[in-house]
């Protein structure tokens, strides 16, 4: 577990949007999905997920409704709204730009300058 990376501030929201964009999920499902798509490389406190979900609901990026899980447990399911989908696209682009720039910057060597 020690080789898990700390989350950068603000990236949790984007991860949640990504996870939910693949299909409606309940809170625990979001955690599992993030673990699955990041190969469990990121450390996420389970409880910290919920304030983030609430914030996204308030920003009307997600919508929530109660339903029943695969193993017949009552759970609250989240899915993207239209605004959420739009925000997800924008944030993804932004992140890609940042990541490309950071990677390029960090790869620079003395002789290239």
């Amino acid at each position, binding site marked *: 577990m020690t080789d898990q990376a700390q989350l950068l501030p603000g990236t949790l929201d984007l991860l949640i949007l990504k996870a939910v964009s693949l299909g409606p999920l309940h809170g625990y*499902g979001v955690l599992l999905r993030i673990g699955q798509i990041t190969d469990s490389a990121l450390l996420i406190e389970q409880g910290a997920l919920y*304030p983030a979900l609430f914030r996204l609901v308030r920003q009307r990026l997600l919508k929530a409704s109660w339903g029943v899980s695969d193993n017949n447990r009552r759970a609250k399911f989240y899915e993207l709204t239209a605004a959420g989908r739009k925000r997800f696209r924008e944030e993804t682009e932004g992140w890609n730009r940042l990541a490309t720039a950071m990677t390029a910057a960090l790869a620079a060597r003395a002789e290239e300058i």
Partner: protein
Amino acid sequence: MNIFRRSQVAKETEEELLSHIQLRADDLERSGLERAEAERRARIELGGRERYKEECYEAMGSNFFESLVQDVRLALRVLRKSPGFTFAAVITLALAIGANAVVFGIMDGLLLRTVNVPQWESLWGTMAGENTTWHSYPNYVDMRDRNHSFEALAAFNMVFVGLDTGKDPSVANGFATSGNYFDVLRIQPYLGQFFHASDEHGRNSAPFVVLSYAYWHSRFQGDPSVVGRVVGLNKHPFTIVGVAPPGFQGTLLFGSPEFYMPIVNQDQVSTEGLLNARGTDHGIFEVLGHLKPGVTPAQATADLNRVGAYLETTYPREVGHGTASLAHEGLTSFERPAEAFIAGLMLLAGLILLAACANLGSLFAAHAADRSREVALRLALGSSRRRILRQLLTEAMLISLVGGAAGLWVSVVLLSRLSKWQPFPGISVHIPVSPDARLYLVALVLALISGFLFGIVPVRQVLRANPYEVVKAGSTGRLGRRMTVRDLLLVIQIAICAVLVTSSLVAVRGLARSLHGNYGFDPRNTMLAATNLSMAGYSMDKVPAMQKRMIDAIQTVPGVEHAGLVSDYPPLVLTAGTRENVFKAETTDLRNSNAAANPYRYEISPGYFGAAGTSLLAGRAFDWHDGKDAPPVVVVNRDFAGKMFGSVMNAVGSYYKLQDGRRVQVVGVVEDGKYQSITEDQQPAMFLPFMQSPASASFLIVRSHRDPQQLAAAMRTNLHQLDSGLPVDTKTWNELLAVVLFPSRVATMSLGVMGMMGAMLSVTGIFGMAAYSVSKRLRELGIRVALGAQRIEVLQAVLGRTVKLLAVGSGIGLLLGILATKVLAYIVYQATPRDPLVLTGVVLAMALLGLVATWIPAQRALSVDPMMLLREE
């Protein structure tokens, strides 16, 4: 409600977190753990449930009401910490909103709902055009029967009678109304019944009286057994049939009648024979009625004018129709001037509110600047700018609501006093203003708008605030550009105040001018005695002889220098005036359109001009030989002489024709004067000998330097010796002029009040600015003084800017005031600010205000002790 929502969110969060634990436990169980152990592990993995619940709640965003309560609490704390600021702001707003609410209340009362009857919205009265003569009963009957626009048309006329209950005959004013009057107005009697159209069977067929509620109380002590009692109106028996409801004050805005009688009986109380005369223009006062559903006022006007045109072609000699128009019943012919007056007032009140907002805006900006450290700290601690702005706006709103409530309270008090106001002794006036929901709404909206206006002034300041800079440098840093917003606000405010001061000075000058204007008579040292011989039962043929005996009796009163008599009303009394068409001597077809002029007509006795103080320019006045059988003669004013005959000299000895076809010879010309209102343009007037056209109602006019009270008593005694049953009403001409001067007085008073408020606002504004700049720069001043600055230099440094702004603002205001002459002219007679006295007055007033406002800050700046200040920091 907050608590409810909070627990709701908490419950849902709890449920969701529990569901998470169950799902996680399911997974753990599947990987081989015991159920109990799996749940324990799941719980631990989730972490502090209460903490996350709290975070979830916060993530939901705080509730509007919750943060409102927080904001209000904080605002109250802040405001309590600076009571001076709060007090100044609340008072300023209370004044401004109070002024606006009062003006709105007046507008509401005078223009929006003038008559207290059901469905007043569709009730319209006709307003005759200039110089029309169709206000007669026969014309009303034609109008009523031939129009297609009104459900029914009623008419009324004003009558003054001697009302005799058997003990004390006294004068009462009433309405002679068409039989359908109360039915058209859709009101029900308070007691007994009303008379109806079905009671009318021709002339003098319906001797009934309905009392007004107020008169029933004052004259009959509210005795319910009056219904059925017979009273004498000018000695004719009339039966009291009912009492009108308390809220009903007749259909005239300013005069409330004491009783109502059928108009078909009006000839019993007037000696003129009005009922069947088509040519008269005082057989009725107004007609009114509800429009049929779907008929617009414009269509109704066209319809009435169609009937009018018919009447004019059918009776060319009697009817000159002009064009009629419709107005909401109550004000009718007063509506346009009243509208203009109120519009002007609203404009000024709006300006006051604007000035107050500018004033408060700069106060708030200063306040916010003083708090920049606090704001910076809150920003640094992570508060959002939006939250801080909301906080500031909450403070502004709080102040505006409190100020608005205070202003509303003041206006309610003022309006209720206004509605009870009786400006003229002996003449009943009701001003139907009563605060209602609309007034409260207007005050609330004004308060919110102004709170928003002055609340957003410091917004830019806060948005630009950089927490690091402010915390580092403290709040004493250069204020820089920030000052310019406040400068601008101060200039705006001073300019508005200068406009208000200008207008109030203009109004005062206008009033002074109309008070000392030339009326064509001299109201000083006069005593007037009003009598109506028909009230004492005199028949028309006995009237002139009795009136001559009255003049003789008055002349024997010691101290009387001149005595004369004028029929009906003297000039400028109760805005009464009779006009009549006159024709060139050679005109034979005396139809309206052939009239050469439409002068005021007065019937006077010999000695009238001496008593009135009207000077004779040429020819002679009347003497007692100009009696019934003498050749018909007339005296005209200069304007009449000029219009009809070209000059005063040509006029004397010339002839012209009266409406009734009599040829009269001009024997004298007198000076011009005012006849119906102070503000009228110069009008022609003619004076006929009273013995040649007698009338029972008259005013005796006496000129004397004796003490007015003794004189009046002596006159009454002498008249009562002639006939003890004759009601006599004595007043000086100046007292009666009060009615005619009333509009100018009211205008001057309201403009004066507005000007005072403007002055107060500018004083507080300048004071605030000066005091603030002194307190901000005390340290700098201390250093200057320590370095040897002179007093004058200190003052210049600290107040130079304020004085400059004051000068600029006053200049702009004065300019605007001059440009606003037209607006002022609506309100004040002969308003012109292009008057050296007014201009000097405004400049002096503004300078004085500036001096007053900067006095205390200047003293503070001068008393700066450098040592103290330097030690303090």
